[in-house]
């Protein structure tokens, strides 16, 4: 038996079933329109044609067929409007995330018009954990929380402040071993978004996960990328003997200093420290509002999954984990992305993120749930972010996961934030912030190397309450740009050609005046494990006027970046 047999069997179901389903169905023309209706909006309405035709009344033979049938139209290709809509939603979602960072004035829910749900949702009166107000009733109606970006719960905690103490001095000499295992002080080569690239005398380090030796090559003369911890017997589960465990997803930077988040298995996972190359730490920030945030999560879980009899959260002390921090411009404000561990209620898994504004100590909530409700069976994608729930499910960049695969996903407390962070890192090479604008490459579909559109948003327009209304300025419809990054007022990216060498190009912030910075002399001559490796250029970064390029089969190239 195949699906067609089943479909046909359903088609043979007696009338009682068909009628029952339609007992209350009404879809009048005046009903609220959705995206399908939008496609018919421009069509000539049948009734207008009917009216013009003025069919005769009287006999059964007089058919209004000619009047009903519209003029035959040529068959175009099947429209991709739905897909485009989904992609637009994905972009809006991503923009929404960063819109938080620009939201500096309206975080007081009571003063924010149009966000009553958010205002009603949580009003923290005591950061020690007093109960918060209940969710509005409509939140419990659907599988998805109805908390949109505009409705995101906001918890105010006035005394969330970071330390303004001077950073620890770098006292490491060139001959001493630093905290990542190389020699000499660590320098921050790149700290854009979730990409943290460090270097010392010996290595380049990528997200405290892998490293590339600057001097050593393998037998083929290739500078290999190796894991930060390459001990084959290491399970990366103990901090005392594993650099990767100690730093991956825990080491972050604001572009000037390094920070180390506490291990979420530690006694105080709410602590964020500054750290220098020697590994010395000093307290920088301590999250105090976690009890209220935890309660917010509990209520959100309970509302989102009304079938769950109880919400069994893990210990609140273990829930928190700093995932990133950043500043915009020279403002004395840190934005911290704080993730939680999964919360479990029956088979439901709940992962949430908060964005902390250290200026006023307020939080905006981004929740990430990993459960069947996050799976979109139509598009077979797993939603990873949820700023705009209904739209998000359609098009968030996500990896394609089959339904039953997803049901088998097992997350542990030790690994889930790592995975979440990895996904975000995956997304991060497609956007950048530059000159007050968010420049973003839309991903068409789940494939990471699929063509997309280069678009640009004004960050000023990314008001939290206007996410749906933000219009992207399309720089290029079908771009081949990959690994977008910005430096010195220009965009840099890799263009991968199906035939021919890859190029690293740059253009201005308007997407114009493209010039080729470097062209690969090799065309993917190594065996390929992943699609993204199927070309010469794998990665590049820009640091201090130099561009550092990794090519398949070739050593890292470090070239001076000339003026375009």
């Amino acid at each position, binding site marked *: *038996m195949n*699906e067609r047999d089943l479909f046909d*069997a359903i088609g043979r*179901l007696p009338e009682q079933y068909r009628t029952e*389903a339609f007992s209350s169905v009404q879809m009048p023309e005046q009903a609220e329109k959705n995206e399908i209706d939008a496609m018919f909006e421009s069509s000539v309405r049948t009734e207008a044609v009917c009216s013009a035709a003025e069919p005769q009344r009287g006999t059964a033979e007089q058919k209004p067929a000619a009047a009903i049938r519209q003029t035959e139209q040529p068959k175009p290709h*099947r429209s991709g409007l739905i897909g485009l809509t989904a992609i637009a939603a994905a972009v809006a979602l991503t923009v929404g995330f960063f819109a938080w960072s620009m939201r500096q004035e309206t975080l007081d829910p009571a003063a924010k018009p149009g966000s009553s749900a958010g205002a009603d949702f949580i009003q923290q009166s005591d950061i020690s954990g007093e109960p918060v107000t209940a969710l509005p009733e409509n939140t419990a109606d659907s599988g998805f929380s109805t908390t949109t970006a505009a409705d995101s719960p906001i918890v105010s905690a006035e005394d969330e402040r970071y330390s303004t103490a001077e950073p620890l001095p770098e006292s490491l000499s060139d001959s001493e071993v630093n905290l990542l295992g190389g020699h000499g002080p660590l320098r921050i080569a790149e700290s854009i978004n979730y990409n943290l690239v460090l270097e010392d005398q010996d290595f380049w380090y990528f997200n405290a996960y892998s490293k590339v030796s600057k001097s050593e090559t393998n037998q083929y003369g290739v500078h290999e990328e190796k894991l930060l911890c390459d001990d084959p017997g290491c399970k990366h589960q103990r901090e005392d003997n594993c650099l990767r465990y100690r730093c991956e997803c825990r080491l972050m930077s604001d572009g000037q200093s390094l920070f180390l988040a506490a291990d979420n298995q530690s006694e105080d996972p709410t602590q964020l420290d500054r750290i220098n190359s020697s590994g010395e730490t000093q307290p920088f920030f301590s999250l105090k509002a976690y009890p209220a945030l935890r309660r917010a999560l509990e209520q959100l879980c309970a509302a989102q999954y009304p079938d769950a009899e109880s919400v069994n959260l893990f210990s609140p002390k273990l829930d928190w984990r700093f995932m990133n921090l950043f500043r915009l411009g020279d403002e004395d404000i840190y934005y911290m992305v704080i993730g939680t561990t999964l919360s479990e209620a029956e088979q439901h898994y709940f992962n949430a993120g908060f964005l902390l504004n250290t200026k006023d100590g307020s939080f905006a909530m981004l929740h990430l749930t990993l459960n*069947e409700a996050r799976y979109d*069976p139509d598009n077979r994608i797993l939603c990873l972010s949820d700023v705009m729930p209904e739209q998000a499910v359609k098009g968030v960049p996500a990896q394609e996961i089959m339904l039953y695969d997803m049901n088998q996903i097992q997350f542990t407390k030790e690994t889930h934030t790592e995975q979440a962070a990895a996904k975000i890192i995956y997304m991060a090479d497609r956007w950048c912030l530059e000159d007050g604008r968010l420049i973003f490459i839309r991903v068409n579909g789940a494939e990471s190397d699929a063509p997309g559109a280069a678009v640009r948003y004004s960050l000023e327009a990314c008001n939290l309450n206007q996410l749906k209304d933000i219009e992207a300025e399309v720089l290029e419809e079908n771009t081949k740009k990959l690994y977008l990054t910005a430096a010195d007022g220009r965009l840099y990216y890799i263009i991968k050609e199906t035939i021919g060498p890859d190029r690293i190009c740059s253009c201005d912030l308007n997407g114009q005046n493209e010039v080729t910075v470097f062209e690969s002399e090799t065309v993917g001559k190594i065996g390929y494990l992943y699609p993204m490796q199927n070309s010469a250029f794998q990665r590049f970064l820009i640091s201090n006027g130099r561009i550092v390029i990794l090519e398949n089969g070739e050593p890292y190239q470090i070239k001076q970046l000339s003026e375009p």
Partner: protein
Amino acid sequence: MTDQELLALFIQRDERAVSETQKQYGRLCRHIAYGILSSKEDAEEIANDVLMRAWDVIPREKPQNLGAFLAVMTRNLSTNRLDQYTAQRRGGGQHPAVLDELAECTASAENVEQAVDARLLDTALRQFLDALTAEQRAVFMLRYYYALPVPDIAEQRQIGVSKVKVMLMRLRKRLNEHLRKGGFL
């Protein structure tokens, strides 16, 4: 205008039967047709064909539920049209998606050429539906019989889109188990 009033107009051969039915059910027909065919033009044509056929068969037939009557007609016309487009089987739309989803229920290592007694399958399907709640049954039928897009089902049933999706996913699992127990898979 109620169904009875619309039927009365059809019986009287009043042209307003068409325009009023269009107002009442045109959107529904377009959505069903679009869900199967994924083509605006085709959906418009099918919706118009449905009205034309309704004009033809009423009053010879007197449907008790005009909406269901038109919906079934829309479904049948749309699937017939789709069969003509077999080359575009994977061209998109809800119908391939519906088939894909149903494939989850029928996934089996057995040879698909093993014939299935259609009558037994029909019976098993009815047993499955009878064990569901009214809402589950309605959602199942709206999706897999009428091929309505999920947002439309959510709109009709006044529930969230994700709830519909979750419900459908659970129903598919349940149907899969039911069919396995029945020896169909």
